[in-house]
């Protein structure tokens, strides 16, 4: 068996945002029952931690899968500028229709990062609090 492992680069980012979990398809009572205090009308916020894993060949000249400056600039533009210090429900078009749970947030962030040109997006993980985290690696 080959001793050459598969290598991924992992990078963490932080952003803070507010949300309210509320579905227009449910009654007030059902929203309250399903989402509990996450349904409070004025919303609340979290300090999210985003972990991005990129796969690819390590360039022998640089020792890198991707230059961190390129990755940081891409994540800044695609995710942090759009989500940090925003209301997910009101400021992010994807959540006009969808409930901004962290599951849906993972899918939205994955969609925004998938086009990174220098490496292959392998998976993302979003930590909503120190006790909750969610991962998404695409549907295939």
């Amino acid at each position, binding site marked *: 068996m*080959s001793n050459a*492992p*598969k290598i991924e*680069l*992992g990078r*963490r*980012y932080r952003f803070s945002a507010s949300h309210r979990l509320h579905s227009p398809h449910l009654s007030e009572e059902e929203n309250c029952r399903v989402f509990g205090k996450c349904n409070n009308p004025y919303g609340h916020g979290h300090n999210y931690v985003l972990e991005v894993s990129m796969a690819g060949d390590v360039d022998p000249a640089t*020792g*890198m899968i991707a230059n961190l400056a390129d990755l940081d600039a891409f994540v800044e533009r695609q995710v942090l500028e759009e989500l940090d210090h925003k209301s997910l429900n009101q400021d992010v078009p994807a959540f006009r229709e969808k409930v901004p749970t962290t599951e849906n947030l993972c899918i939205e962030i994955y969609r925004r990062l998938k086009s990174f040109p220098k490496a292959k997006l392998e998976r993302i993980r979003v930590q909503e609090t120190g006790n909750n985290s969610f991962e998404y*690696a695409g549907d295939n």
Partner: protein
Amino acid sequence: MVLLTRKIEFAASHVYHNPNLSSEENRRIFGKCNNPHGHGHNYTLEVTVEGEPDPVTGMVLDLKELKEILEREVMQRMDHRHLNYEVAELAGQIPTCENIARVIWQLLEPKITQGRLHRVRLYESPDLFADCYRNGAGVAGKS
């Protein structure tokens, strides 16, 4: 299958410099990691071994044995060392997180004979790490 993970920490210095590139290119690509006298990190290494627990001992492998392997293969080689000048396995490579993690995988993989190496994760800082997996194997959570 069960996964078990052991964590160790080591401190080391390094510099990113490719002698085949000009000073300007080195500076542009590597930024402050190219500062000539180097700099250092507290690295955190997480080593994950996969296997079935032995029916008699209940262990995938004896953690003491894993600790000794990590001490011998990683700590003695890298702790309080300059990765460019003192670690033979990294000679001629830029000691990025990706390359160090790969070297650690290659050092550990043949030594772990009970269970087998599943993942090596090396943190250079809490926000930057590299993962190594067996090539062709499914990644945890995505088999």
